[in-house]
């Protein structure tokens, strides 16, 4: 999750710098794509968090129903 956030910002930054380098529009491409990268990062992070919350809820439901915890790996860091 943390990696999703940081990675998106870095990818946005890299794309922005590359765009500026090609089009010569410094520093606007970098700024615009950095903002987009941050937005994408938060979106991706929230989506991962939603998925994990759903998985945990499913596991709790399965456990309380006496069916045993669902077998799923944990995706930390």
């Amino acid at each position: 999750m943390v990696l999703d956030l940081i990675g998106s910002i870095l990818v946005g930054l890299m794309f922005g710098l590359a765009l500026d380098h090609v089009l010569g529009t410094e520093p606007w491409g970098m700024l615009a794509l950095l903002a987009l990268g941050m937005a994408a990062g938060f979106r991706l992070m929230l989506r991962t968090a939603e998925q994990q919350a759903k998985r945990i809820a499913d596991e709790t439901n399965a456990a309380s129903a006496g069916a045993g915890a669902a077998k799923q790996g944990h995706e930390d860091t």
Partner: protein
Amino acid sequence: MMGQMALDPMHQFKVETLREFSIGGFDISFTTASLALMLVVVIVFALLFFAISKPKIVPSRMQSVGELGYEFVANMVRDTIGEEGIKFFPFIFTLFLLVFGCNMLGMIPYFVTPTAQIVVTAALALLVFFTVIVFGFIRNGIGFLKLFVPSGVPLPLLFLLVPLEIISFFVRPLTLSLRLFGNILAGHIVLKLFVGFTVALLGTASFLSVFAIAPFFLALAFTALEFLVAFLQAYIFTVLTCVYLNDAFHPSH
């Protein structure tokens, strides 16, 4: 000075060149990491060969280990991609065994851990990334681009969401490689530090040596944890590969 070097937690990740090669100015020397990777391939191949060399209805111990690994990855592929994804099973199974083998090789003292080198994990992640792109376009043609268009969204919002989806897509090789690399690297550093503390405290040869028991047990606990991490990271890498390949099969979500 020798003691100083042995306690340096980063020293274990230094790659030594065994044979120097270069093609067109690119340094492709055969290093200790390459040797470790080849060793993993040989070990995995030998184990699997041994597992299936004399198949029986009632499997021997080695055979059931091989079948267990096969079933584990095959179920993972079926659950995430579906029945049609099974044609990617050889690729995914190979990736899983390679990453898992590298992680486990690193748990043996004095062995190089290939997955603690960013080049290795980045190469694997880029392989997955480009497989998804190439196969996605072969299977769906231009329809693969539907991957970047979330369904059920009004048109004006798409102008914002499509760039976000594209950035999210290009983040994948970065996070895929960094997750594996970071977990393995951090685990090895922590292990080395605790063992280093133990040795340093014992080396004082005073009443302080008594306290060496604390980092020793921590190192012991972390060794167990690292075996778990070695498996878990291989598992996560494989599951995410399946999830990404699933996009190539079903681009619209």
